[in-house]
């Protein structure tokens, strides 16, 4: 295969002045809209999609759209860190420790870590795509329903590590999330369920509405407690850029996150959502200071952010090699290609080499522009923290209303925001953390749907999960994770018991 020739063609296409310009506009627009609180990547792209239709050349418009995607994703992480408002499932993990870092006065470091992690992950993932896209696709196609179901089990087992308080409560939150994820129309039977007869809720509760409610609004309400007696204060901002020590500590998490994200991102059917959560669990497990997690651990930002960006990058693989969208964002990209007169399919690389390789090259250029653009902007974002809170939250409420409403024009999504804001605050008061719930919410429908579909495909034979090699391997992994997670604590418990008996 003429890899160098292809890459040269790609860079020649992507680095024309016009295309770099479109990429820059895309990255910039994506960042600026995505950084508005409550407006995540999907909403940003849906809003900006029509603009790309105005560009005549399909390559340029796709390059710009891809730029919007990275920009929006980075913008979403920015709001997650600054005001605890994740716009996408992956940045929900960033919010856990990123927001704590911001409260400790290390917002600048958190943002820089996210930017650096994203860039490294993006670069490595781009190389992976260029080298291995076709063979990776073959592996992705081996993932049937049984494999997905087992993968979700691994994810669920790992989710327990997200908690930094009571494990039982964390499990209860995961279960609650799984249940909420099942509200709406059942994919397999078509029946509508658990929605109290409200078909206006649509096929499923809106993810952004839930994330905004549980994280953002609950946090606003917490800040409004004791207003009379307590000044809402962020710690003084100390140092915008990571120190040498910070760099040393983010390196390994970034590489691990990138590997994880690249692997899970290629799975069509949104395997990437697991990447950020899994990365967080792993970092917490391998860290020599696990007690820092949940209180502002650098690795808790570096790992998941890299995983999320690598996954975002490799989720282009199924689209480029098969013409199949791995997630809603890719579905929008395919819509854009069709409007431009390119119907994506297995032959895009052969029929349209300039488009295929140009897009791949532009991914790297996009990531480069993103980091050039954002490192200087960090100072500006951090200044936003100085805006008094009582000015910030009407702004947040207005933007998140617009953002949530713009996706489906469904007023019920707004009522869901309000409801989950209230619920999130209530759960916060009960010392329950929202991240496990959100993970459950994302995994619930995937787990159930794939479990039931696997059973249909195996004609009701449950051994399908252990006789299919990939699925069996994943289940073994889940068992291994369980052992690793629970053995130390079990041993400690037993030791405590023995001490008491003596």
């Amino acid at each position: 295969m003429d890899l160098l020739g292809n890459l040269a063609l790609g860079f020649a296409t992507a680095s024309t002045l016009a295309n770099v310009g479109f990429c820059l506009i895309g990255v910039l627009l994506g960042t600026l809209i995505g950084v508005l609180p409550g407006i995540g990547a999907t909403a940003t792209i849906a809003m900006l999609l029509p603009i790309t239709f105005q560009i005549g050349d399909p390559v340029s418009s796709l390059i710009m759209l891809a730029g919007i995607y990275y920009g929006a994703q980075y913008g979403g992480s920015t709001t997650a860190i600054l005001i605890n408002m994740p716009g996408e499932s992956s940045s929900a993990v960033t919010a856990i420790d990123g927001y704590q870092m911001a409260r400790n006065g290390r917002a600048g470091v958190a943002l820089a870590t996210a930017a650096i992690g994203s860039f490294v992950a993006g670069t490595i993932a781009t190389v992976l795509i260029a080298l291995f896209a076709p063979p990776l696709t073959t592996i992705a196609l081996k993932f049937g329903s049984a494999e997905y179901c087992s993968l979700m089990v691994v994810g669920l087992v790992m989710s327990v590590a997200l908690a930094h308080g009571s494990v039982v409560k964390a499990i209860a939150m995961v279960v609650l999330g799984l249940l909420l994820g099942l509200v709406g129309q059942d994919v397999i039977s078509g029946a509508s369920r658990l929605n109290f007869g409200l078909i206006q809720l649509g096929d499923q509760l809106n993810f952004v509405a839930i994330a905004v409610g549980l994280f953002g609004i609950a946090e606003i309400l917490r800040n409004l407690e004791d207003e009379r007696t307590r000044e809402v204060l962020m710690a003084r901002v100390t140092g915008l850029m990571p120190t040498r020590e910070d760099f040393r500590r983010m390196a390994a998490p970034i590489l691990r996150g990138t590997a994880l994200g690249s692997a899970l991102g290629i799975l069509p059917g949104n395997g990437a959502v697991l990447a950020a959560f899994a990365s967080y669990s792993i970092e917490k497990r391998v860290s020599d200071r696990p007690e820092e997690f949940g209180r502002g651990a650098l690795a808790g930002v570096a790992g998941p952010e890299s995983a999320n960006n690598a996954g975002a990058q490799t989720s282009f693989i199924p689209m480029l090699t098969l013409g199949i969208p791995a997630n809603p964002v890719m579905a929008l990209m395919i819509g854009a290609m069709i409007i431009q007169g390119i119907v994506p399919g297995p032959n895009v690389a052969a029929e349209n080499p300039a488009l295929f390789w140009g897009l791949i090259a532009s991914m790297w250029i996009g990531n480069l522009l993103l980091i050039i653009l954002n490192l200087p902007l960090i100072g500006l974002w951090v200044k936003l923290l100085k805006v008094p809170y009582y000015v910030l939250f009407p702004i947040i409420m207005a933007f998140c209303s617009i953002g949530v409403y713009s996706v489906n024009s469904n007023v019920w999504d707004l009522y869901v925001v309000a409801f989950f804001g209230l619920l999130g605050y209530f759960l916060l008061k009960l010392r329950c953390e929202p991240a496990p719930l959100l993970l459950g919410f994302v995994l619930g429908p995937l787990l159930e749907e794939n479990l039931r579909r696997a059973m249909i495909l195996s004609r009701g034979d449950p051994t399908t999960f252990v006789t299919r090699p990939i699925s069996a391997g994943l289940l073994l992994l889940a068992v291994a994770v369980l052992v690793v997670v629970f053995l130390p604590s079990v041993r400690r418990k037993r030791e405590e018991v023995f001490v008491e008996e003596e």
Partner: protein
Amino acid sequence: MKQATFDPTNIICGAFFILVGAVFAWQSLEVELGSWLRIGPGGMPLALSLLLILLGLIILLAALREVGEPVGAIAWRGIVFITLAPIIFGFTVRGLGFVGAVFITALFASFASLRMTPLRALLLSAALAAFSTAVFSYGLGLPFERIGPWLR
């Protein structure tokens, strides 16, 4: 002050999970449960609901033997104004149109804080409405009517 011999927060928490589990269990019985081999739309929700009830019980029972902090202050004023803000947006966006809905939503949310003066709230909301209209409506061309039928 007498120290409580139980954890009030976790008692509420356990009770909450049990209640939610019960509600979802009742909802899942409305649809077909299916069998082990052909799981119906109600099967998984029912199993999860029962698991949630069990976890709630564990939390509740453990809370009876622990000492914990009380729930603490609650932001009642915030709850009213903040959670109603998106609902108000929902009620007005079709009627008043985009400009009016953004204005009213921001204005309403402003009242959640005691530190906000009415004049500042008005100015902030107007600026937000103008900015959002410029960016989303003119700039991005979101398909919402700027001025709704109530104002025509």
